[in-house]
């Protein structure tokens, strides 16, 4: 009989069979609870009471009207950008340039805010800014898409590089041609009130726009021809060509749409949140949104929940810092722990671990050896 001449590794991985949805959600909830426990430990180590810490996060982000409004302000660009990159990721086009596309959109919208505010009434002006933001973001995204479609360049590096170019350019505008008078401040002037998005419920109306976008994106991906094409291209370019699809065109169109949505987010940030433009307008949202889109498995409705959690944590972390003197790095660690567990649980949904020397296996070996 065959004898095993090699050692059994301590832990092995095996791909799981499809898990039932109930079990999947069970694991996800367990992961979040576990993350909260570990996060609590982190708070405890930093010298505060974990329960009080969590209470501060919740109260500090949702408890007061002003705090709640700030949370919503964090939430809007995160959700909007996650929605923007969803079609790219569905197409397996790794667009990590949302940061730059937001900035490009914000810049184009700002041009009209600065130079057309006195010539146009409020509503047409805002509409023009909206369109300018969309086109700006869209064109910025189109450049790497064009290179990818024509010459197969690597989109990951290309889109990342595009971020630095546009952010650098806005920095130049801020300190040069668009600098407010008197010069020397390195800042762009506050927008004329005509160029600021109106508030609804105390927060600029961007939250309505992104919530409408959730439904639009869901519809687009699931029920339109373009959404169908995106899914086919993402699965196999060969199949797409076989089906008579124009793959380069689809890649470019999808990236334009994605960039356009990011550009609108940029417009909303400049016009609604900041009432001005600066080089850090995107503030890392373009990267955090990748996590959101991924965790939501590209489902727009799931993105709402995940963006909300991250927005709450972000605002709550501020309160933690101001009210309990917990260092800002600690709240970053808590966010990290949460993300780690959420990503980790997807892994456990797909794989299982097998430990060497478990009772059943020993039994096997005896039977064979005998």
């Amino acid at each position, binding site marked *: *009989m*065959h*004898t*095993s*001449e*090699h*050692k*059994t*590794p301590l832990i*092995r991985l*095996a791909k799981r*069979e*499809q898990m039932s949805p109930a079990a999947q959600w069970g694991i996800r909830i367990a992961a979040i609870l576990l993350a909260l426990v570990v996060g609590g430990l982190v708070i405890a180590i930093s010298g505060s009471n974990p329960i009080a810490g969590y209470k501060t996060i919740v109260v500090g982000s949702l408890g007061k009207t002003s705090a709640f409004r700030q949370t919503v302000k964090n939430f809007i660009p995160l959700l909007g950008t996650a929605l923007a990159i969803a079609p790219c990721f569905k197409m397996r086009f790794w667009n990590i340039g949302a940061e730059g596309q937001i900035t490009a959109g914000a810049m184009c919208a700002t041009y009209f805010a600065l130079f057309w505010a006195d010539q146009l009434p409020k509503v047409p002006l805002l509409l023009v800014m909206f369109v300018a933001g969309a086109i700006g973001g869209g064109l910025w995204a189109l450049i790497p898409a064009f290179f990818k479609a024509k010459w197969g360049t690597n989109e990951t590096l290309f889109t990342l590089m595009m971020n630095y170019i546009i952010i650098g350019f806005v920095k130049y505008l801020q300190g040069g041609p668009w600098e407010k008078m008197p010069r020397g401040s390195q800042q762009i002037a506050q927008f004329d009130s005509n160029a600021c998005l109106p508030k609804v419920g105390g927060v600029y109306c961007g939250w309505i726009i992104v919530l409408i976008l959730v439904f639009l994106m869901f519809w687009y991906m699931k*029920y*339109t*021809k*373009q*959404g*169908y094409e995106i*899914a*086919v291209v993402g*699965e*196999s370019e*060969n*199949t797409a*060509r*076989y*089906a*008579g*699809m*124009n793959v380069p065109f689809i890649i470019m169109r999808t990236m334009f749409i994605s960039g356009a949505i990011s550009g609108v987010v940029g417009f909303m940030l400049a016009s609604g949140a900041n009432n001005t433009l600066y080089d850090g307008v995107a503030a890392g949202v373009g990267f955090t949104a990748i996590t959101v889109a991924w965790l939501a498995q590209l489902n727009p409705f799931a993105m709402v929940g995940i963006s909300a959690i991250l927005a709450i944590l972000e605002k709550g972390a501020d309160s933690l810092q101001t009210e309990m003197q917990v260092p800002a790095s600690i709240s970053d660690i808590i966010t990290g722990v949460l993300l780690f567990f959420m990503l980790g649980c997807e892994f456990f949904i797909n794989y299982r671990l*097998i430990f060497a020397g478990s009772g*059943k*296996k020993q*039994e*096997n*070996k005896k*039977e*064979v050896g*005998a």
Partner: protein
Amino acid sequence: MSGLEQVSAIRLQGITKRFGPVVANDGINLEVERGQILSLLGENGSGKTTLMNMISGIYFPDDGEIFVGGRKVTIRSPKDAFDLGIGMIHQHFKLVDVFTAAENIVLGLDGKGKFDKKAVAAKVREISERYGFDIDPDKKIYDMSVSEKQTVEIVKVLYRGADILILDEPTAVLTPQETDKLFAVLRNMKADGKAIVIITHKLHEVMAISDKVAVLRKGKYIGTVNTAETNPQALTEMMVGRAVSLNIDRPEAKYRDLRLEVKGLTCRSLEGVKTLDDVGFQAFGGEILGIAGIAGSGQKELLEAIAGLQKAETGSVLYYPPHPNSEIAGYHVPVDRNGEELLGKTPSQIQKIGVNLSFVPEDRLGMGLVGSMGMVDNMMLKTYKEHKGPMVDRKPPKALAQRLIQELEIVTPGVSTPVRRLSGGNVQKVLVGREIDSNPTVLMTAYPVRGLDINSSYTIYRLLNEQKMKGVAVVLVGEDLDVLLELCDRILVLCGGKVSGIVDGRTATKEEVGLYMTRVGGGKEEA
């Protein structure tokens, strides 16, 4: 040998496996003995692969017991199976392309110390000699043919000391000559006392290689018979549950009109090697044109070039519209009566000028279908643009999916189950069904019955004949010469990218075609 024959290698008792609502295996009992080759036979989706996957540790049974060497065992992973001396050769190989044969063979064996190249090569050679394999331990996988890769997989499990071998449709990807070689090896292993289970849909192979045949039907165990005491007709009846005729028709079509005219077609691979060399032929409506040849003689490139998926260096492919009186005439926008050039057009341009070309490519999940989508979404792959407006209309594809499930007896939990999860044969039915349903004037199929059970194969032959009778020009790339000779009106033989002969299917012999297949073409030595 007589002593070994009594020893049970594997015994399954009441094995049950469910996937959601589908009962893939329902209380199966099975016995595999040492020194014996057992064929596992059953229609597509009858649960053969699932059952074998439970023995090799990929799935875990919901119910039932497995005995190895008379003892009850629990197999939780492929590693457990290996420890019990069970090795399975899957239909899709799991080899690392950039490694050599020897490296792949020891891969995953966490032996102590370094990879001793000499020792491995020596042991590989010893195994090869013992069973009659033909293997070069230092050859890289990407340089290998399918059959060589399969050899590596088999040596790999033998190297690990497997004495129970399971082969899932090993011959589906082999030429007849390669199959003969494999069978010779299997017979040597059997003489060595190993227990072998082989899954195949080809009844003549079952008759040639096995000692016993176990039959599954719709997840249930029907029985085991001695091969010597049965015949293909009886086995088919056991498998299907009713009498089935095993004759292939070759009816005469009413019209025979020129549909495709290929002239001087030359293609090169990305490396610059000529894959097609000055290929010329005609295909007629109301005719099945078979294409025979050793695997890789340019069959794939030929079909893809006609379909607009492959760039051609020179040549032309002229399309002529069907006869105005034929059944299929009315569906199409008129094209140039003097022949419409297809070369240089993309698939969508070809569609647009009203040429309805159906194509069943060899790579089903990589080109013909989208594996992660359900049947409905796959049905509309080529037609989703027809509906007006920005939305897709899933009603017609859904109706089509349901109709195909009925007509072709496709086994699937539902129209939205990802097609990747269907059994191999059912995937093929989904693809062929969709292509035939699109009312083509030219129907090109590559290995349409590969992996299909006998009953479904005959269904496909019937469908191809129906298309031919309607006036469609059917181009069929096949590997089974017996079938090609029974079904096709004419057979074109490719050898090294050149046409080495075109014969009449009614009068040609197998030997004649075989001769053309190996006649060295001038373009072959080009590389």
